[in-house]
């Protein structure tokens, strides 16, 4: 019994320490992004743009394909239930609302974790193993400012853009079913989707996507920095970055969804 208590206690402390590390890294990056430029530490915009290309633009094809399919799947699943009530025409609003409020940002986060969260951990982890992080420090360059801040800035800007794109592709996916299986015209489907949406549906999704972006950057970079010695530990950091990111993104999603539920007008 004591053994179990000790283990639970240790795991809790470890988890809290990890969250503390994430918060420190996130706040550090936020400092260098929003306050640093006014205190004579210029932003590395060129690096941020470079990161935004890698995180955002290059992810567009795969993200488009995945969210388009998700849109079709949502429409099919929705229609399965809705047709029992003869309410097949509601399929457009079902897809539009679940894409913008939830699945657009979430699927974007999953794709970005797989493509970029893991890449952040691998890049920083490799730099740690080859002493490049140490080299930065001996050159009086802060690794957080130099490596994390451009990624952080790129993610904050690019995640909402990707999520918006994902929303659109999902709705188009739904339209494929709407047109072929529910008797909509394409124009009619899109109009019905727009009518069903409130601005707050889109906004809540975008707010979430920004939070997801911050989470993914912090986890990826923290895992990179905590890489031990050797190539094997880079692999371990990369895996941990993906698993922990998916878990924490889900937690953040839960918190914000609950928040928006209780805050929204009835």
């Amino acid at each position, binding site marked *: 019994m004591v053994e179990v208590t000790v283990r639970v206690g240790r795991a809790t402390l470890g988890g809290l320490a990890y969250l503390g590390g994430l918060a420190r890294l996130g706040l550090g990056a936020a400092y260098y992004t929003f306050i640093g430029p006014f205190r004579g530490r210029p932003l590395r915009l060129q690096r941020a743009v470079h990161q935004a290309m890698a995180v955002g633009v290059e992810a567009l094809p795969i993200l488009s394909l995945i969210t388009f399919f998700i849109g079709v799947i949502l429409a099919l699943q929705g229609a399965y239930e809705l047709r029992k009530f003869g309410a097949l025409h509601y399929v457009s609003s079902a897809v539009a609302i679940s894409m913008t409020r939830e699945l657009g940002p979430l699927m974007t986060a999953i794709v970005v974790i797989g493509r970029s969260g893991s890449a952040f951990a691998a890049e920083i982890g*490799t*730099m740690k193993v*080859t*002493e*490049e992080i*140490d*080299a930065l*420090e*001996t*050159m*009086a*360059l*802060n690794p957080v400012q130099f490596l994390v801040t451009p990624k952080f800035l790129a993610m904050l800007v690019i995640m909402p853009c990707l999520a918006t794109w994902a929303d659109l592709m999902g709705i188009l996916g739904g339209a494929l079913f709407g047109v072929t299986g529910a008797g909509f015209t394409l124009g009619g489907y899109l109009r019905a989707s727009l009518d069903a949406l409130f601005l707050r549906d889109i906004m809540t999704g975008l707010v979430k996507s920004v939070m997801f972006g911050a989470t993914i950057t912090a986890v990826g970079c923290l895992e990179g920095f905590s890489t031990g010695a050797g190539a094997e530990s880079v692999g371990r950091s990369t895996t941990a970055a993906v698993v922990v990111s998916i878990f924490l993104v889900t937690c953040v999603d839960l918190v914000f969804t609950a928040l928006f539920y209780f805050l929204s007008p009835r």
Partner: protein
Amino acid sequence: MSVRTGDSIISVHDLRVRYGEREVLHGISFDVRPNETMVILGGSGSGKSTLMRALVGLEKPSGGEIWMKGKNIAGLSGAEMDAIHKKLGMSFQGGALFGSMTVGENVALPLREHTPLEESTIEIVVRLKLEQVGLAGFEEYMPAQLSGGMKKRAAVARAMAMDPEMLFFDEPSAGLDPIIAAGIDNLLLKLKKAFQMTIVVVTHELVSAFLIADRMILIDKGSIIAIGTKEELQASAHPRVRQFLDRVPEAEVLEEMDHLQMLTEERRPRQR
């Protein structure tokens, strides 16, 4: 005991470093005089690399003082440490060049970040530094395209970019064939002659140590067992110093009880 006088540029006093429970350096004290080449010798796991890391501020000491340019760097804040870092250059064992930048950009990085120099001036400085290490014309190469010896030369060029007062070398000849390693030794001697610089080198290579050193420190199991000039070290009668200099292998047969104790000792604290 060493006295902290104005004539030493680095003064280490009773330095202790621990990783968790284990103390790696047990009270190291020595001085480095301006413009001398100090070689820190020691076997694998002796703590010489940890000492180097502590000297350049990468490892926080658990005790003792490291005086560098009149400041105790063991207790410095980030900004104050940055000021010291701008005055020292460090060449890492594997080069530690940034893989995403060309050789030229690597050398230019500290200049771009810390000086108001114009781009055209930086280009000239980079060309000059690369020429000094025998890598003229390699500006546009990526680090991955360089051989081990060239990487080290490029790392030296980057360490020298800011014209540092102190230059630190971690294992300059590790992983290089004897000819290339001798080339690096020559480069060090050339730099020493050409520039007014204090150089600290960590190595386990006896030949290269005796070639480049003004004075040497021999570290064993986290303590200094000998310090002095080449001649003084050669004349030492300390058994561990002799063993290191004469390259006598470690005796393999241990007392049975000692061996048993060694096997069980590390485990004991965990079970508590």
